[in-house]
Protein backbone atom coordinates (compact mmCIF):
# COMPACT_ATOMS: atom_id res chain seq x y z
CA UNK A 1 0.00 0.00 0.00
CA UNK A 2 2.75 2.45 0.98
CA UNK A 3 4.71 1.78 -2.20
CA UNK A 4 1.51 2.35 -4.24
CA UNK A 5 1.01 5.72 -2.56
CA UNK A 6 4.65 6.72 -3.08
CA UNK A 7 4.61 5.60 -6.72
CA UNK A 8 1.44 7.57 -7.38
CA UNK A 9 2.90 10.64 -5.63
CA UNK A 10 6.08 10.45 -7.70
CA UNK A 11 3.98 10.40 -10.89
CA UNK A 12 2.45 13.80 -10.09
CA UNK A 13 5.80 15.58 -9.83
CA UNK A 14 6.63 15.77 -13.57
CA UNK A 15 3.05 16.82 -14.31
CA UNK A 16 3.11 19.62 -11.75
CA UNK A 17 6.52 20.82 -12.98
CA UNK A 18 5.36 20.94 -16.59
CA UNK A 19 2.14 22.69 -15.56
CA UNK A 20 4.17 25.36 -13.75
CA UNK A 21 6.47 25.86 -16.75
CA UNK A 22 3.45 26.18 -19.07
CA UNK A 23 1.77 28.76 -16.85
CA UNK A 24 5.05 30.67 -16.53
CA UNK A 25 5.58 30.70 -20.30
CA UNK A 26 2.00 31.78 -21.03
CA UNK A 27 2.78 35.40 -20.18
CA UNK A 28 5.96 35.28 -22.25
CA UNK A 29 3.90 34.32 -25.31
CA UNK A 30 2.46 37.83 -25.35
CA UNK A 31 4.67 40.05 -27.49
CA UNK A 32 6.23 42.98 -25.68
CA UNK A 33 7.75 43.67 -22.28
CA UNK A 34 6.53 41.11 -19.68
CA UNK A 35 6.79 43.75 -16.93
CA UNK A 36 4.41 46.00 -18.88
CA UNK A 37 2.08 43.04 -19.51
CA UNK A 38 2.01 42.22 -15.79
CA UNK A 39 1.55 45.78 -14.50
CA UNK A 40 -0.79 47.07 -17.21
CA UNK A 41 -0.48 50.04 -19.55
CA UNK A 42 -0.73 52.76 -16.93
CA UNK A 43 2.19 51.59 -14.78
CA UNK A 44 4.79 54.17 -13.70
CA UNK A 45 8.45 53.86 -14.59
CA UNK A 46 9.64 53.13 -11.04
CA UNK A 47 7.21 50.22 -10.59
CA UNK A 48 8.20 48.84 -14.00
CA UNK A 49 11.90 49.03 -13.16
CA UNK A 50 11.21 47.40 -9.78
CA UNK A 51 9.30 44.51 -11.33
CA UNK A 52 11.96 44.08 -14.05
CA UNK A 53 14.61 43.72 -11.37
CA UNK A 54 12.30 41.41 -9.40
CA UNK A 55 11.60 39.16 -12.38
CA UNK A 56 15.27 39.33 -13.41
CA UNK A 57 14.30 40.02 -17.02
CA UNK A 58 17.97 40.46 -17.98
CA UNK A 59 18.76 36.97 -16.73
CA UNK A 60 18.24 33.79 -18.81
CA UNK A 61 14.72 32.33 -18.95
CA UNK A 62 15.39 29.23 -16.75
CA UNK A 63 16.67 31.48 -13.93
CA UNK A 64 13.59 33.70 -14.29
CA UNK A 65 11.44 30.60 -13.99
CA UNK A 66 13.22 29.49 -10.82
CA UNK A 67 12.68 32.86 -9.15
CA UNK A 68 9.02 32.93 -10.30
CA UNK A 69 8.51 29.44 -8.90
CA UNK A 70 10.11 30.40 -5.57
CA UNK A 71 7.65 33.29 -5.28
CA UNK A 72 4.73 31.03 -6.26
CA UNK A 73 5.69 28.36 -3.72
CA UNK A 74 5.72 31.02 -1.03
CA UNK A 75 2.18 31.91 -2.07
CA UNK A 76 3.18 35.08 -3.93
CA UNK A 77 1.43 35.00 -7.29
CA UNK A 78 1.83 38.71 -8.00
CA UNK A 79 -0.77 41.46 -7.88
CA UNK A 80 -3.89 42.09 -9.93
CA UNK A 81 -3.47 44.81 -12.58
CA UNK A 82 -7.05 45.95 -12.03
CA UNK A 83 -7.43 46.06 -8.24
CA UNK A 84 -3.82 45.86 -7.07
CA UNK A 85 -4.76 43.11 -4.61
CA UNK A 86 -2.51 40.06 -4.19
CA UNK A 87 -3.61 37.33 -6.63
CA UNK A 88 -3.32 34.50 -4.08
CA UNK A 89 -5.70 36.30 -1.71
CA UNK A 90 -8.23 36.92 -4.50
CA UNK A 91 -8.19 33.26 -5.49
CA UNK A 92 -8.64 31.93 -1.95
CA UNK A 93 -11.41 34.44 -1.30
CA UNK A 94 -13.33 33.26 -4.37
CA UNK A 95 -12.49 29.56 -4.19
CA UNK A 96 -14.66 28.78 -1.13
CA UNK A 97 -17.94 29.48 -2.93
CA UNK A 98 -16.89 27.52 -6.03
CA UNK A 99 -15.74 24.57 -3.92
CA UNK A 100 -19.06 24.44 -2.02
CA UNK A 101 -21.15 24.46 -5.21
CA UNK A 102 -18.97 21.91 -7.01
CA UNK A 103 -18.69 19.52 -4.06
CA UNK A 104 -22.42 19.45 -3.31
CA UNK A 105 -23.32 19.07 -6.99
CA UNK A 106 -20.80 16.31 -7.70
CA UNK A 107 -21.78 14.38 -4.56
CA UNK A 108 -25.46 14.55 -5.50
CA UNK A 109 -24.72 13.62 -9.11
CA UNK A 110 -22.60 10.65 -7.99
CA UNK A 111 -25.34 9.31 -5.71
CA UNK A 112 -27.95 9.68 -8.47
CA UNK A 113 -25.64 8.05 -11.02
CA UNK A 114 -24.70 5.15 -8.75
CA UNK A 115 -28.32 4.24 -8.04
CA UNK A 116 -29.75 4.89 -11.51
CA UNK A 117 -26.83 3.23 -13.31
CA UNK A 118 -26.91 0.11 -11.14
CA UNK A 119 -30.70 -0.21 -11.48
CA UNK A 120 -30.58 0.24 -15.25
CA UNK A 121 -27.86 -2.39 -15.60
CA UNK A 122 -29.70 -4.80 -13.31
CA UNK A 123 -32.92 -4.55 -15.33
CA UNK A 124 -31.14 -4.19 -18.64
CA UNK A 125 -33.38 -3.47 -21.65
CA UNK A 126 -36.43 -2.96 -19.44
CA UNK A 127 -38.49 0.21 -19.34
CA UNK A 128 -36.38 1.44 -16.40
CA UNK A 129 -33.21 0.96 -18.44
CA UNK A 130 -34.62 2.77 -21.45
CA UNK A 131 -35.80 5.65 -19.24
CA UNK A 132 -32.42 5.96 -17.49
CA UNK A 133 -30.35 5.74 -20.69
CA UNK A 134 -32.73 8.05 -22.53
CA UNK A 135 -32.67 10.68 -19.79
CA UNK A 136 -28.88 10.48 -19.44
CA UNK A 137 -28.45 10.87 -23.21
CA UNK A 138 -30.72 13.90 -23.38
CA UNK A 139 -29.07 15.46 -20.29
CA UNK A 140 -25.64 14.99 -21.93
CA UNK A 141 -26.79 17.09 -24.87
CA UNK A 142 -28.08 20.03 -22.83
CA UNK A 143 -25.45 22.73 -22.24
CA UNK A 144 -25.23 23.63 -18.55
CA UNK A 145 -25.62 27.35 -19.22
CA UNK A 146 -28.81 26.84 -21.21
CA UNK A 147 -30.29 24.59 -18.53
CA UNK A 148 -29.34 27.27 -15.98
CA UNK A 149 -31.06 29.98 -18.03
CA UNK A 150 -34.21 27.86 -18.40
CA UNK A 151 -34.35 27.11 -14.66
CA UNK A 152 -33.84 30.81 -13.91
CA UNK A 153 -36.60 31.68 -16.34
CA UNK A 154 -38.97 29.17 -14.73
CA UNK A 155 -38.21 29.34 -10.99
CA UNK A 156 -36.77 32.84 -10.77
CA UNK A 157 -38.95 34.80 -13.17
CA UNK A 158 -42.21 32.97 -13.86
CA UNK A 159 -42.79 31.33 -10.45
CA UNK A 160 -40.69 33.70 -8.36
CA UNK A 161 -39.75 30.95 -5.90
CA UNK A 162 -36.02 31.59 -5.91
CA UNK A 163 -33.86 34.73 -6.12
CA UNK A 164 -33.14 35.75 -9.68
CA UNK A 165 -29.80 37.52 -9.76
CA UNK A 166 -26.97 38.27 -7.38
CA UNK A 167 -25.58 36.67 -4.28
CA UNK A 168 -25.55 37.24 -0.52
CA UNK A 169 -22.46 35.93 1.29
CA UNK A 170 -22.80 33.22 3.95
CA UNK A 171 -21.40 35.63 6.53
CA UNK A 172 -24.42 37.93 6.09
CA UNK A 173 -27.24 35.42 5.98
CA UNK A 174 -26.70 31.68 5.67
CA UNK A 175 -30.31 31.03 4.69
CA UNK A 176 -30.30 33.67 1.94
CA UNK A 177 -26.96 32.40 0.67
CA UNK A 178 -28.33 28.88 0.40
CA UNK A 179 -31.37 30.09 -1.54
CA UNK A 180 -29.02 31.68 -4.06
CA UNK A 181 -27.10 28.42 -4.39
CA UNK A 182 -30.09 26.13 -5.03
CA UNK A 183 -30.37 26.72 -8.78
CA UNK A 184 -26.62 26.58 -9.55
CA UNK A 185 -26.27 23.34 -7.58
CA UNK A 186 -29.34 21.77 -9.21
CA UNK A 187 -28.15 22.78 -12.68
CA UNK A 188 -24.70 21.28 -12.16
CA UNK A 189 -26.10 18.13 -10.56
CA UNK A 190 -28.36 17.46 -13.54
CA UNK A 191 -25.65 18.22 -16.09
CA UNK A 192 -23.00 16.07 -14.46
CA UNK A 193 -25.23 13.10 -13.62
CA UNK A 194 -25.61 12.22 -17.33
CA UNK A 195 -22.11 11.03 -18.08
CA UNK A 196 -21.66 9.45 -14.62
CA UNK A 197 -24.88 7.44 -14.97
CA UNK A 198 -23.82 6.06 -18.33
CA UNK A 199 -20.43 5.08 -16.92
CA UNK A 200 -21.97 3.40 -13.87
CA UNK A 201 -24.45 1.50 -16.04
CA UNK A 202 -21.86 0.15 -18.45
CA UNK A 203 -19.43 -0.92 -15.72
CA UNK A 204 -22.29 -2.53 -13.76
CA UNK A 205 -23.27 -4.49 -16.88
CA UNK A 206 -19.70 -5.77 -17.14
CA UNK A 207 -19.57 -6.76 -13.48
CA UNK A 208 -23.02 -8.44 -13.51
CA UNK A 209 -21.70 -10.95 -16.06
CA UNK A 210 -18.75 -11.99 -13.89
CA UNK A 211 -18.64 -15.49 -12.38
CA UNK A 212 -18.44 -14.31 -8.79
CA UNK A 213 -21.83 -12.61 -9.12
CA UNK A 214 -23.39 -15.82 -10.45
CA UNK A 215 -21.69 -17.61 -7.56
CA UNK A 216 -23.10 -15.16 -5.01
CA UNK A 217 -26.58 -15.67 -6.45
CA UNK A 218 -26.17 -19.45 -6.50
CA UNK A 219 -25.28 -19.32 -2.81
CA UNK A 220 -28.82 -18.06 -2.33
CA UNK A 221 -27.92 -14.53 -1.27
CA UNK A 222 -30.82 -12.11 -1.60
CA UNK A 223 -30.62 -10.07 -4.83
CA UNK A 224 -30.33 -6.87 -2.79
CA UNK A 225 -27.19 -8.13 -1.03
CA UNK A 226 -25.71 -9.30 -4.33
CA UNK A 227 -26.20 -5.87 -5.86
CA UNK A 228 -25.12 -3.77 -2.90
CA UNK A 229 -22.27 -5.86 -1.47
CA UNK A 230 -20.91 -7.63 -4.55
CA UNK A 231 -21.75 -5.70 -7.70
CA UNK A 232 -21.65 -2.12 -6.44
CA UNK A 233 -18.06 -1.84 -5.12
CA UNK A 234 -16.49 -3.23 -8.30
CA UNK A 235 -18.78 -1.36 -10.64
CA UNK A 236 -18.27 1.89 -8.77
CA UNK A 237 -14.47 1.98 -9.07
CA UNK A 238 -14.34 3.23 -12.71
CA UNK A 239 -17.12 5.70 -11.94
CA UNK A 240 -15.04 7.05 -9.07
CA UNK A 241 -12.16 7.77 -11.45
CA UNK A 242 -14.60 9.64 -13.64
CA UNK A 243 -15.84 11.58 -10.59
CA UNK A 244 -12.25 12.75 -10.02
CA UNK A 245 -11.93 13.86 -13.64
CA UNK A 246 -15.36 15.54 -13.41
CA UNK A 247 -14.35 17.49 -10.30
CA UNK A 248 -11.31 18.86 -12.09
CA UNK A 249 -13.12 19.63 -15.30
CA UNK A 250 -15.89 21.33 -13.34
CA UNK A 251 -13.43 23.92 -12.05
CA UNK A 252 -13.56 25.12 -15.67
CA UNK A 253 -17.23 24.43 -16.35
CA UNK A 254 -18.23 26.38 -13.24
CA UNK A 255 -17.11 29.57 -14.98
CA UNK A 256 -20.16 29.34 -17.21
CA UNK A 257 -22.54 28.51 -14.35
CA UNK A 258 -21.21 31.36 -12.23
CA UNK A 259 -21.79 33.71 -15.15
CA UNK A 260 -25.40 32.55 -15.57
CA UNK A 261 -26.19 32.91 -11.87
CA UNK A 262 -23.89 35.92 -11.23
CA UNK A 263 -22.00 34.13 -8.44
CA UNK A 264 -18.66 35.66 -7.39
CA UNK A 265 -16.65 32.41 -7.57
CA UNK A 266 -13.29 31.38 -8.97
CA UNK A 267 -14.62 30.72 -12.49
CA UNK A 268 -16.11 34.21 -12.71
CA UNK A 269 -12.80 35.66 -11.47
CA UNK A 270 -10.99 33.91 -14.31
CA UNK A 271 -13.47 35.05 -16.97
CA UNK A 272 -13.47 38.63 -15.70
CA UNK A 273 -9.68 38.74 -15.67
CA UNK A 274 -9.51 37.34 -19.20
CA UNK A 275 -11.92 40.06 -20.35
CA UNK A 276 -9.91 42.73 -18.48
CA UNK A 277 -6.54 41.30 -19.65
CA UNK A 278 -5.55 41.02 -15.99
CA UNK A 279 -2.76 38.54 -16.78
CA UNK A 280 -1.37 37.92 -13.25
CA UNK A 281 -4.85 36.80 -12.14
CA UNK A 282 -5.33 34.61 -15.25
CA UNK A 283 -1.95 33.03 -14.55
CA UNK A 284 -2.75 32.50 -10.86
CA UNK A 285 -6.17 30.95 -11.51
CA UNK A 286 -4.72 28.62 -14.12
CA UNK A 287 -1.91 27.44 -11.84
CA UNK A 288 -4.30 27.03 -8.91
CA UNK A 289 -6.94 24.99 -10.78
CA UNK A 290 -4.33 22.73 -12.39
CA UNK A 291 -2.83 21.99 -8.97
CA UNK A 292 -6.26 21.31 -7.48
CA UNK A 293 -7.07 19.04 -10.42
CA UNK A 294 -3.88 17.01 -10.00
CA UNK A 295 -4.38 16.75 -6.22
CA UNK A 296 -8.04 15.72 -6.52
CA UNK A 297 -7.15 12.96 -8.95
CA UNK A 298 -4.31 11.89 -6.68
CA UNK A 299 -6.77 11.55 -3.80
CA UNK A 300 -9.22 9.63 -6.00
CA UNK A 301 -6.48 7.23 -7.08
CA UNK A 302 -5.50 6.74 -3.45
CA UNK A 303 -9.15 5.88 -2.66
CA UNK A 304 -9.22 3.36 -5.47
CA UNK A 305 -7.75 0.38 -3.54
CA UNK A 306 -10.56 0.83 -1.03
CA UNK A 307 -13.05 -0.28 -3.69
CA UNK A 308 -10.82 -2.56 -5.72
CA UNK A 309 -7.99 -4.06 -3.61
CA UNK A 310 -6.38 -5.61 -6.69
CA UNK A 311 -5.05 -2.16 -7.65
CA UNK A 312 -2.28 -2.15 -5.04
CA UNK A 313 -1.03 -5.50 -6.25
CA UNK A 314 -0.07 -4.05 -9.62
Amino acid sequence: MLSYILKRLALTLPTLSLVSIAVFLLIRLIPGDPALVLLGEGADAAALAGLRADLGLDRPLPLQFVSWLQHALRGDLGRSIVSGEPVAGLILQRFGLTAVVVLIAVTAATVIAAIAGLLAAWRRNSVIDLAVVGTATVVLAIPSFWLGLLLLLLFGLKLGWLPFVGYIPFSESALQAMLFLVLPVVTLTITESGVLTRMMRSSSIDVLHLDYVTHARAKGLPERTVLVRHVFPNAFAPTLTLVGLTLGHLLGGIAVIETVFTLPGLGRLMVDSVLARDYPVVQGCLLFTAFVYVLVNLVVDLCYPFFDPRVTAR
Partner: protein
Amino acid sequence: MRGRAGHVGTGRIGLRHIGLSALIGIPLIGALLLTIGIGLFWMPYDPIAIDLAHPLGAPALRHWFGTDQFGRDVLSRSMLGARISVLIALATVVVAITVGTALGLLAGYLRGWTDRLLMMITDAVLAFPGILLALALIAVLGSSDGSIILALSTAYTPSVVRVVRATVLSIREREFIEASRSAGDSSLQTISRHILPNVLPPVVVLATSLFGWAMLSESALSFLGVGVPPPAPTWGNMLSESRPYMDIAGWLSIVPGLCIAGTLLGVNLLGDALRDWLDPRRQT
Protein backbone atom coordinates in the same frame (compact mmCIF):
# COMPACT_ATOMS: atom_id res chain seq x y z
CA MET B 1 -13.97 -7.51 -18.19
CA ARG B 2 -14.72 -6.16 -21.64
CA GLY B 3 -13.79 -9.48 -23.22
CA ARG B 4 -16.19 -11.42 -21.02
CA ALA B 5 -19.07 -9.12 -21.82
CA GLY B 6 -18.47 -10.05 -25.45
CA HIS B 7 -20.18 -13.39 -25.43
CA VAL B 8 -23.30 -12.36 -23.60
CA GLY B 9 -26.24 -10.28 -24.61
CA THR B 10 -25.18 -8.97 -28.03
CA GLY B 11 -27.15 -9.90 -31.12
CA ARG B 12 -30.79 -8.85 -31.21
CA ILE B 13 -30.57 -6.38 -28.32
CA GLY B 14 -27.45 -4.74 -29.77
CA LEU B 15 -29.17 -4.28 -33.10
CA ARG B 16 -32.15 -2.62 -31.47
CA HIS B 17 -29.86 -0.20 -29.66
CA ILE B 18 -27.95 0.75 -32.79
CA GLY B 19 -31.27 1.15 -34.52
CA LEU B 20 -32.67 3.54 -31.95
CA SER B 21 -29.53 5.73 -31.69
CA ALA B 22 -29.19 6.00 -35.44
CA LEU B 23 -32.93 6.44 -35.93
CA ILE B 24 -32.94 9.64 -33.87
CA GLY B 25 -29.35 10.77 -34.52
CA ILE B 26 -29.34 10.67 -38.31
CA PRO B 27 -32.45 12.87 -38.84
CA LEU B 28 -31.13 15.42 -36.32
CA ILE B 29 -27.76 15.70 -38.08
CA GLY B 30 -29.56 15.62 -41.43
CA ALA B 31 -31.70 18.58 -40.37
CA LEU B 32 -28.59 20.47 -39.24
CA LEU B 33 -26.78 19.87 -42.53
CA LEU B 34 -29.89 20.76 -44.52
CA THR B 35 -30.24 24.03 -42.56
CA ILE B 36 -26.61 24.91 -43.23
CA GLY B 37 -26.99 23.91 -46.89
CA ILE B 38 -30.08 26.07 -47.42
CA GLY B 39 -28.41 28.92 -45.51
CA LEU B 40 -25.57 28.96 -48.03
CA PHE B 41 -27.99 30.04 -50.77
CA TRP B 42 -30.93 31.61 -49.03
CA MET B 43 -31.94 33.03 -45.64
CA PRO B 44 -35.27 34.67 -44.80
CA TYR B 45 -33.55 37.94 -43.80
CA ASP B 46 -30.07 39.38 -43.60
CA PRO B 47 -28.86 37.93 -40.26
CA ILE B 48 -26.95 41.04 -39.23
CA ALA B 49 -29.26 43.71 -40.68
CA ILE B 50 -30.59 45.89 -37.84
CA ASP B 51 -34.29 46.81 -37.98
CA LEU B 52 -34.98 49.12 -35.05
CA ALA B 53 -38.65 49.44 -36.06
CA HIS B 54 -39.33 45.82 -35.00
CA PRO B 55 -37.28 44.95 -31.89
CA LEU B 56 -38.11 41.94 -29.70
CA GLY B 57 -40.91 40.73 -31.97
CA ALA B 58 -42.57 37.51 -30.81
CA PRO B 59 -42.51 34.49 -33.16
CA ALA B 60 -45.03 35.08 -35.96
CA LEU B 61 -45.57 34.29 -39.61
CA ARG B 62 -43.21 37.06 -40.76
CA HIS B 63 -40.49 36.02 -38.32
CA TRP B 64 -40.88 32.34 -37.38
CA PHE B 65 -38.54 32.55 -34.38
CA GLY B 66 -39.18 36.24 -33.64
CA THR B 67 -36.67 39.09 -33.67
CA ASP B 68 -33.98 40.14 -31.19
CA GLN B 69 -33.35 43.47 -29.43
CA PHE B 70 -32.04 45.01 -32.67
CA GLY B 71 -34.93 43.64 -34.75
CA ARG B 72 -32.67 41.02 -36.36
CA ASP B 73 -34.41 37.84 -37.55
CA VAL B 74 -33.66 35.00 -35.09
CA LEU B 75 -34.21 32.25 -37.68
CA SER B 76 -31.67 33.77 -40.07
CA ARG B 77 -29.21 34.33 -37.23
CA SER B 78 -29.62 30.72 -36.08
CA MET B 79 -28.98 29.50 -39.63
CA LEU B 80 -25.77 31.51 -39.94
CA GLY B 81 -24.85 30.52 -36.38
CA ALA B 82 -25.13 26.86 -37.34
CA ARG B 83 -22.65 27.35 -40.17
CA ILE B 84 -20.14 29.24 -38.00
CA SER B 85 -20.35 26.79 -35.08
CA VAL B 86 -20.05 23.70 -37.28
CA LEU B 87 -17.10 25.11 -39.23
CA ILE B 88 -15.23 26.00 -36.02
CA ALA B 89 -15.95 22.58 -34.49
CA LEU B 90 -14.92 20.79 -37.70
CA ALA B 91 -11.66 22.72 -37.96
CA THR B 92 -10.92 22.00 -34.29
CA VAL B 93 -11.52 18.28 -34.78
CA VAL B 94 -9.40 18.13 -37.95
CA VAL B 95 -6.45 19.87 -36.25
CA ALA B 96 -6.70 17.83 -33.03
CA ILE B 97 -7.10 14.49 -34.86
CA THR B 98 -4.26 15.15 -37.33
CA VAL B 99 -1.75 16.35 -34.77
CA GLY B 100 -2.90 13.86 -32.11
CA THR B 101 -2.75 10.85 -34.45
CA ALA B 102 0.74 11.77 -35.66
CA LEU B 103 2.06 12.22 -32.10
CA GLY B 104 0.24 9.12 -30.83
CA LEU B 105 1.73 6.95 -33.61
CA LEU B 106 5.15 8.36 -32.79
CA ALA B 107 4.80 7.68 -29.06
CA GLY B 108 3.38 4.19 -29.48
CA TYR B 109 5.74 3.08 -32.23
CA LEU B 110 9.01 4.55 -31.00
CA ARG B 111 8.31 4.17 -27.26
CA GLY B 112 11.27 5.00 -25.02
CA TRP B 113 12.02 8.64 -24.31
CA THR B 114 9.82 10.05 -27.06
CA ASP B 115 6.90 8.22 -25.50
CA ARG B 116 7.69 9.25 -21.93
CA LEU B 117 8.16 12.90 -22.88
CA LEU B 118 4.93 13.01 -24.91
CA MET B 119 2.98 11.35 -22.10
CA MET B 120 4.32 13.86 -19.59
CA ILE B 121 3.24 16.73 -21.84
CA THR B 122 -0.25 15.28 -22.42
CA ASP B 123 -0.65 14.77 -18.65
CA ALA B 124 0.28 18.41 -18.07
CA VAL B 125 -2.14 19.72 -20.70
CA LEU B 126 -4.91 17.48 -19.37
CA ALA B 127 -4.37 18.94 -15.89
CA PHE B 128 -5.97 22.18 -17.10
CA PRO B 129 -9.76 22.12 -17.38
CA GLY B 130 -10.43 22.44 -21.13
CA ILE B 131 -12.43 25.65 -20.94
CA LEU B 132 -9.90 27.39 -18.67
CA LEU B 133 -7.00 26.43 -20.95
CA ALA B 134 -8.95 27.79 -23.91
CA LEU B 135 -9.80 30.96 -21.94
CA ALA B 136 -6.14 31.53 -21.05
CA LEU B 137 -4.93 30.95 -24.61
CA ILE B 138 -7.61 33.30 -25.96
CA ALA B 139 -6.54 35.90 -23.37
CA VAL B 140 -3.07 35.73 -24.90
CA LEU B 141 -4.01 35.34 -28.57
CA GLY B 142 -7.01 37.67 -28.62
CA SER B 143 -10.48 36.45 -29.56
CA SER B 144 -11.01 35.44 -33.17
CA ASP B 145 -12.18 32.32 -35.01
CA GLY B 146 -8.58 31.24 -35.50
CA SER B 147 -7.62 31.54 -31.86
CA ILE B 148 -10.74 29.63 -30.74
CA ILE B 149 -9.78 26.77 -33.07
CA LEU B 150 -6.17 26.84 -31.89
CA ALA B 151 -7.16 27.02 -28.21
CA LEU B 152 -9.73 24.22 -28.39
CA SER B 153 -7.56 21.90 -30.48
CA THR B 154 -4.71 22.40 -27.99
CA ALA B 155 -7.06 21.30 -25.23
CA TYR B 156 -8.30 18.22 -27.15
CA THR B 157 -5.14 16.92 -28.83
CA PRO B 158 -3.86 15.06 -25.71
CA SER B 159 -6.90 12.77 -25.58
CA VAL B 160 -6.31 11.83 -29.25
CA VAL B 161 -2.64 11.14 -28.52
CA ARG B 162 -3.61 8.82 -25.66
CA VAL B 163 -6.21 6.84 -27.62
CA VAL B 164 -3.92 6.39 -30.64
CA ARG B 165 -0.93 5.46 -28.47
CA ALA B 166 -2.94 2.88 -26.52
CA THR B 167 -4.16 1.28 -29.76
CA VAL B 168 -0.65 1.18 -31.24
CA LEU B 169 0.74 -0.39 -28.07
CA SER B 170 -1.97 -3.06 -28.16
CA ILE B 171 -1.07 -4.16 -31.73
CA ARG B 172 2.61 -3.40 -32.18
CA GLU B 173 3.74 -6.85 -30.95
CA ARG B 174 1.20 -8.76 -33.06
CA GLU B 175 2.31 -11.14 -35.82
CA PHE B 176 1.24 -9.06 -38.81
CA ILE B 177 3.36 -6.13 -37.64
CA GLU B 178 6.31 -8.46 -37.10
CA ALA B 179 5.71 -9.96 -40.56
CA SER B 180 5.70 -6.52 -42.15
CA ARG B 181 8.99 -5.67 -40.44
CA SER B 182 10.72 -8.91 -41.37
CA ALA B 183 9.52 -8.53 -44.96
CA GLY B 184 11.79 -5.47 -45.05
CA ASP B 185 9.15 -2.74 -44.90
CA SER B 186 10.37 0.61 -43.63
CA SER B 187 8.91 1.99 -40.41
CA LEU B 188 6.85 4.44 -42.45
CA GLN B 189 5.40 1.63 -44.57
CA THR B 190 4.61 -0.49 -41.51
CA ILE B 191 2.89 2.44 -39.84
CA SER B 192 0.88 3.57 -42.84
CA ARG B 193 -0.12 0.13 -44.17
CA HIS B 194 -0.60 -1.89 -41.03
CA ILE B 195 -0.87 0.29 -37.94
CA LEU B 196 -2.86 3.26 -39.21
CA PRO B 197 -5.83 1.18 -40.49
CA ASN B 198 -6.18 -0.37 -37.02
CA VAL B 199 -5.98 3.00 -35.33
CA LEU B 200 -8.73 4.53 -37.47
CA PRO B 201 -11.89 3.00 -35.90
CA PRO B 202 -11.26 4.32 -32.35
CA VAL B 203 -10.14 7.64 -33.81
CA VAL B 204 -13.37 7.97 -35.81
CA VAL B 205 -15.42 7.32 -32.66
CA LEU B 206 -13.32 9.83 -30.71
CA ALA B 207 -13.72 12.37 -33.51
CA THR B 208 -17.50 12.39 -33.11
CA SER B 209 -17.16 12.97 -29.35
CA LEU B 210 -14.60 15.72 -29.99
CA PHE B 211 -16.95 17.38 -32.45
CA GLY B 212 -19.64 17.51 -29.76
CA TRP B 213 -17.22 18.83 -27.13
CA ALA B 214 -15.87 21.44 -29.53
CA MET B 215 -19.37 22.71 -30.33
CA LEU B 216 -20.26 22.84 -26.66
CA SER B 217 -17.02 24.63 -25.73
CA GLU B 218 -17.29 27.12 -28.56
CA SER B 219 -20.83 28.02 -27.51
CA ALA B 220 -19.70 28.27 -23.87
CA LEU B 221 -16.82 30.57 -24.83
CA SER B 222 -19.14 32.69 -26.98
CA PHE B 223 -21.61 32.75 -24.10
CA LEU B 224 -18.84 34.04 -21.81
CA GLY B 225 -18.09 36.79 -24.30
CA VAL B 226 -14.65 35.55 -25.38
CA GLY B 227 -15.71 33.41 -28.35
CA VAL B 228 -16.79 34.48 -31.81
CA PRO B 229 -17.03 38.28 -31.62
CA PRO B 230 -20.38 39.95 -32.50
CA PRO B 231 -22.08 40.92 -34.77
CA ALA B 232 -21.38 37.45 -36.24
CA PRO B 233 -24.05 35.23 -34.64
CA THR B 234 -23.30 31.92 -32.91
CA TRP B 235 -25.76 30.05 -30.75
CA GLY B 236 -23.59 30.82 -27.72
CA ASN B 237 -23.41 34.59 -28.15
CA MET B 238 -27.13 34.71 -29.08
CA LEU B 239 -27.89 33.08 -25.70
CA SER B 240 -25.57 35.49 -23.96
CA GLU B 241 -27.24 38.53 -25.60
CA SER B 242 -30.71 37.18 -24.72
CA ARG B 243 -30.16 37.44 -20.96
CA PRO B 244 -31.34 41.03 -20.35
CA TYR B 245 -34.58 40.31 -22.25
CA MET B 246 -35.37 36.91 -20.71
CA ASP B 247 -38.56 38.06 -18.98
CA ILE B 248 -40.11 39.78 -21.99
CA ALA B 249 -38.63 37.78 -24.90
CA GLY B 250 -38.24 34.16 -23.77
CA TRP B 251 -37.88 32.87 -27.36
CA LEU B 252 -34.47 34.55 -27.56
CA SER B 253 -33.24 32.22 -24.78
CA ILE B 254 -35.04 29.13 -26.06
CA VAL B 255 -34.31 28.96 -29.80
CA PRO B 256 -30.46 28.98 -29.72
CA GLY B 257 -30.42 26.55 -26.76
CA LEU B 258 -32.66 24.12 -28.62
CA CYS B 259 -30.31 24.36 -31.62
CA ILE B 260 -27.27 23.48 -29.47
CA ALA B 261 -29.06 20.67 -27.61
CA GLY B 262 -30.52 19.16 -30.79
CA THR B 263 -27.14 19.18 -32.52
CA LEU B 264 -25.33 17.69 -29.54
CA LEU B 265 -27.98 15.01 -29.16
CA GLY B 266 -27.63 14.11 -32.83
CA VAL B 267 -23.83 14.01 -32.67
CA ASN B 268 -23.78 11.95 -29.45
CA LEU B 269 -26.32 9.42 -30.75
CA LEU B 270 -24.45 9.11 -34.02
CA GLY B 271 -21.26 8.53 -32.02
CA ASP B 272 -22.98 5.82 -29.97
CA ALA B 273 -24.26 4.10 -33.11
CA LEU B 274 -20.83 4.34 -34.70
CA ARG B 275 -19.15 2.85 -31.61
CA ASP B 276 -21.57 -0.07 -31.46
CA TRP B 277 -21.09 -0.67 -35.15
CA LEU B 278 -17.27 -0.50 -35.08
CA ASP B 279 -16.89 -2.38 -31.80
CA PRO B 280 -19.88 -4.67 -31.28
CA ARG B 281 -18.40 -6.10 -28.07
CA ARG B 282 -18.85 -2.79 -26.31
CA GLN B 283 -22.53 -2.00 -26.05
CA THR B 284 -23.57 1.32 -24.64
